[in-house]
């Protein structure tokens, strides 16, 4: 089995056609003419109509980012490849359910990828104690090959996360980077479940506000 090594940095070199080079978030971006998001919406529409070449194009545009999200959770190349295939297969089957009014293709795609990866992770019966938090959270060294926009956005996200109170950040990091369930996090941090729920809720609200403010400043 090949195993993915320790995270070596940040976002991978961008595919020239990657929609990541123009960052997008929120349905407004797609509607207001973000070309990358609009192209993805068109591709999803074609996929919903049964056009497999559109699936191939969407795959080319997103494979590295989707794989990064999955591999970060699973840390196992073979498992990550399985989940990558499952993710795009689900895209093929469910493209008609994508609603551009309610979110971006990016959020939709990454939510599917993350859900499938979490399913795999939990089916695998992973031991929560086996990984230290410091190993899960990537370092914040920039990747020189990353596009300027992506670097900027990565810095904003890292900054927003760092701005959270420690307890909230820790709970969100264990959830996002560790893939732990709420109960596992509560157990790991020796806190009541209610406390963990509250920390996550407040932390997510703050992240949302901080990221929204950072986007408006751009």
């Amino acid at each position, binding site marked *: 089995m090949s195993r993915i090594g320790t*995270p070596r940095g940040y976002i991978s070199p961008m595919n020239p056609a990657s929609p990541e080079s123009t960052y997008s978030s929120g349905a407004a971006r797609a509607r207001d003419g973000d070309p990358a998001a609009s192209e993805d919406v068109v591709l999803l529409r074609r996929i919903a*109509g049964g056009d497999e070449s559109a699936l191939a194009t969407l795959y080319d545009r997103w494979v590295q980012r989707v794989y990064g999200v999955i591999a970060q959770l699973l840390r196992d190349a073979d498992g990550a490849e399985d989940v990558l295939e499952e993710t795009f297969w689900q895209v093929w089957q469910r493209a008609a359910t994508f609603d551009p009014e309610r979110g971006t293709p990016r959020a939709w795609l990454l939510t599917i990828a993350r859900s499938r990866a979490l399913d795999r992770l939990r089916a695998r019966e992973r031991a929560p104690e086996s990984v230290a938090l410091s190993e899960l959270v990537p370092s914040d060294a920039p990747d020189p090959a990353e596009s300027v926009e992506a670097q900027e956005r990565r810095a904003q996200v890292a900054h927003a996360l760092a701005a959270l109170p420690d307890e909230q950040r820790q709970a969100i990091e264990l959830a996002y980077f560790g893939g732990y369930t709420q109960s596992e996090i509560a157990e790991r941090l020796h806190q009541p479940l209610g*406390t963990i729920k509250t920390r*996550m809720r407040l932390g997510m609200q*703050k992240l949302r506000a901080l990221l929204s403010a950072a986007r408006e400043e751009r």
Partner: protein
Amino acid sequence: MQDEERRDDAADETPEDGPIASDHTPTDAAEDRGDGYDIAGVALGVLSPEEAAAVLAAAENDPTLAKDLAELQAVVAELAHLAPSTSINRGRSAGIRSRLVTRAAASRAGRPVTRQGGPFASTPPRGTEVERIFPAPSQPQPAERPGGRPDRRETTRLSTERRTEERPVPAELERRGRFWKRALGVLAAAAVILSAAGIYALWHERDTREATSAAAAVATANIATHDSLYRTVDSLRTLLAQRDSMVAALRNPRTRVVDLASYMPPAPPGRAFWDQSHQHLMITITGLKPPDPGRTYQLWVMARGHAEPMSAGTFTPDATGRAEMTSEVPVDPNGLRRVVVTDEPEGGSQLPTGKVLFAGR
């Protein structure tokens, strides 16, 4: 419970809230209503399947809640910017891409929505309103999440153990895939040669009348030949896509091979391939005699959590004694216990009644 959480919230978090918590956002509005649905938990994927399902069901009837959830999912998608740079192997990625396209083409051949399906609105919606907005986090794998605490074994060791159980898949099916590709090529070449023959005949026909009738005959023959060839090519394409899909399943490292011992000498042992990822069970048996008149062969699966054997379909061998069948079997990835073939009355039985012909585990 919610009140408890809110008291907890006040005791635990108030000093840290600062100016951000006082900003009134849509998310705050949802929380202010006191419905207390854990949309942050759903967005982060930290809830149990039951808890997540309850929130999703609530969001189905509450557009504001659904919108808030979609926004938090977008925040979670933002965190992907912090995902480490892990590049997929190019060759493996190309393989996955090719399998996806092949599977998509094969499924399109069988799906009612065609290329002319058009925009989303014209496509019959699948799933609920909530599913259209965001996918349920754990929908397809309820069986993969046993209720109890997980066995705390080290991930790497577990994966390695799984690997060692798996056996290589025979290369025969890959060779057959290549055969069909070659067959397609030969048919295409035949179409070109037939057309060329018709044109050649026309070119050298001196007598106009004869040429005309010859042309008509050739044209008719060509049209018929073309139609027939296109039909053949289409059916071969579909067959090829199915084969590719089968080969893809067999290449999957998680596919388990089960030897089926023969209880009907001189038939040699058969084989079953259990594609755990997609819950597909394929069997291949050779040297099989046809069932007696009024009888058929039936495939059964015995699985963890199922008291009775489950039918996976009936089959009969072809003229050469070969039988191949693929069935979808709703069984946990590690739940397959035994695969059995029995002799049954034509049309199959609800539960096995005849003698066992093949069995393996």
